[in-house]
């Protein structure tokens, strides 16, 4: 009895909190409930990716709504957010309630690839727009694609390998050695990047696999040093990347060789520090110090969050704004009409110039290769990158012809 009582109390309480506003609004305005544009931001607020997305992503979405004017068809645009705790089942549970009960029209961010694929699958089933920015799995626009509801906005593993490989070889780094995390993600990143390097005229001298989440990189780094390759590619992610960079700096590897991180953001560089990260190559879709527009937006963001945004935060802002503009242009929040508008309209804002959402849901935009500055070159806090190259969207992302998306094959 206790259990049911507690359960029903909690359920009711939660309903009042989360759905209350929508239901009350719906009751007062009759059939207007569907005209209320309501968006959800699902992210990791407290776990390992909280710096990468987290509260910053929610703030970016809020800024987009404010910049749009806060109102759509005379009614306030509503924003809900939730912490999926990196659990696919929690993510699915929350998102389904958002779609079914709370009349959420679209969800954004959705980082963590297991979460992203689960949420995109749900969007497909429920016919709701899901925009993924934080997750990098290329499955989102291939095996698990959803051309009629899903958009993959920031980068994916194919683009990361493409940009790093092409741009670094062009910059003179033509011999490579890979330090690879020993699981599917690392191996595919190594293979894709290796292929790009070879195609661009470079050589792959060898590779070594390290266990996931290892703390001792010494033997792997000695092999990388012995290879005498100009570039040591880090085909790993998260803490592994950070730890391998720290270890490489301690071993003096960075004196004669350059590291290239395949998946790393400015927030990670900030955590590692310039002393350790200097000379590192990495790729991002956006950097705050690129032009006056990006600087202006980053300044506004920094005033609220007390730190600079990363490319994920910028892409959340851009995707929410693009969605709202599409709803306005379509005159409805109907999924098919809005998605058509989103795909038809090129994206020109502080995040992307001439960005375009392809029919498989891939947002194609330019990607950049950066090198981390030496501490002596850095003039201000967060002044970390030197731009080394730009790769056009069409060259960075997987061509549509190679897509493994079943829904696109007629």
């Amino acid at each position: 009895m206790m259990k049911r009582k507690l359960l029903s109390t909690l359920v009711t309480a939660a309903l009042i909190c989360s759905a209350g506003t929508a239901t009350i609004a719906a009751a007062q305005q009759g059939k207007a409930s569907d005209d209320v544009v309501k968006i959800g931001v699902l992210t990791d607020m407290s776990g390992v990716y909280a710096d990468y997305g987290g509260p910053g992503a929610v703030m970016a979405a809020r800024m987009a709504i404010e910049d749009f004017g806060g109102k759509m068809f005379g009614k306030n645009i509503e924003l809900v957010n939730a912490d999926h705790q990196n659990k696919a089942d929690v993510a699915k549970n929350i998102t389904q309630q958002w779609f079914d009960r709370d009349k959420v029209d679209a969800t954004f961010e959705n980082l963590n690839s297991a979460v992203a694929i689960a949420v995109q699958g749900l969007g497909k089933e429920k016919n709701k727009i899901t925009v993924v920015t934080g997750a990098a799995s290329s499955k989102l626009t291939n095996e698990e694609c959803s051309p009629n509801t899903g958009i993959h906005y920031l980068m994916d593993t194919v683009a990361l390998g493409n940009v790093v490989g092409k741009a670094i070889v062009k910059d003179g780094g033509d011999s490579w050695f890979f330090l690879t995390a020993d699981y599917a993600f690392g191996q595919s990143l190594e293979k894709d990047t290796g292929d790009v390097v070879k195609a661009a005229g470079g050589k792959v001298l060898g590779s070594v696999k390290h266990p996931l989440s290892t703390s001792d990189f010494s033997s792997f780094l000695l092999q990388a040093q012995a290879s005498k390759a100009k570039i040591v590619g880090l085909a790993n992610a998260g803490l592994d990347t950070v730890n391998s960079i720290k270890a490489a700096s301690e071993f003096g590897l960075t004196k004669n060789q350059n590291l290239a991180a395949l998946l790393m953001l400015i927030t990670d560089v900030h955590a590692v520090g310039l002393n350790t990260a200097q000379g590192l190559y990495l790729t991002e879709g956006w950097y705050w110090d690129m032009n006056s527009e990006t600087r202006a937006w980053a300044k506004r963001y920094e005033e609220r969050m007390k730190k600079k945004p990363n490319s994920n935060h910028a892409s959340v802002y851009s995707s929410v704004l693009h969605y709202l503009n599409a709803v306005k242009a379509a005159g409805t929040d109907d999924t098919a009409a809005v998605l058509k508008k989103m795909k038809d309209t090129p994206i020109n804002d502080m995040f992307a110039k001439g960005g375009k959402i392809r029919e498989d849901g891939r947002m194609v935009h330019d990607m950049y290769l950066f090198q981390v500055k030496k501490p002596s070159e850095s003039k201000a806090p967060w002044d970390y990158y030197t731009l080394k190259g730009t790769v056009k969207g069409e060259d960075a992302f997987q061509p549509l012809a190679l897509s493994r998306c079943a829904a696109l094959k007629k």
Partner: protein
Amino acid sequence: MDKRTKILYGILLAGAVIAPFVGGYPLFLMSALCFALFACAFNLLIGFTGLLSFGHAMFFGMAAYFCGHAAKVWGLTPELAVLIGTAGAAAMGYLVGWLAVRRQGIYFAMVTLALSQMVYFICVQAPFTGAEDGLQNVPRGKAFGLINLQSTPHDPLFGVIPVSDDIVMYYFVLALFLLGFGVIYRAIYSPFGQVLKSIRENEPRALSLGYDVDKYKLMAFVLSAALAGMAGALKALSVGAASLTDVSWQMSGEVVLMTLLGGMGTILGPVLGATTIITMQNYLAGFGSWVTIIMGVTFVVCVLAFRRGIVGEIAYRLKR
């Protein structure tokens, strides 16, 4: 079972049956039931046999993968997929248990933890799990080839009662939960359960009375693993996904938390504990970074103020 207990179980059952129509969200109720079964299975070991397994996520998670693979790749019906998940977990339970029951206390916990970490890294590498992407979009299919469990809404029953196939799926999960719960209940109140309790209280004495203690412990371990597997398999079907979270050591820790919070060694404790934790995870998600903090504080309060767990404390006070 005395009259009061019977009434309590009756009310709980009625509550569970009507829950989706009185505000309970079916998908959420399903997750709660799955984790409740998982915690009950775990409680059979720690609460009634005195074995602290710190690797139960391996049975829960692997069964989720087995079941998901059977339903998605082999296209089996849901009841067969759940059966495969359960049987797979039982087989794993036999292997792990055979090795682990030879040791006691902290060594037992460490053996199970070590083996479950091995299973975790196998899942990271093995192709069929999808590594960090998880095994996704598992179809629910049709139970016994007849009853459609996919989630598509219908016209309301009698024009009033809303029916969606999520609700049908909920009853499928509820039926299997009751089956699992019944097995545990029966086991605890059988002579077998008495032997388990005697092992918990005093293992050398049980041994000296002539019981093959290792055999009993192994049987309890396999039973617990199989039921944890059934919970995992049901979760894979109802959520439609199996991911690395399900096999991680954090999940093994979470089930300990659920059991301790609800009341270790009580029958209903794990159910209440699991429901509380899952409710927090889902309904506090909107508060941002507070979920884990609130859960932590709850646990600290539980350990400091009522060590018997919620149900354990209530039962103790009623007895007094």
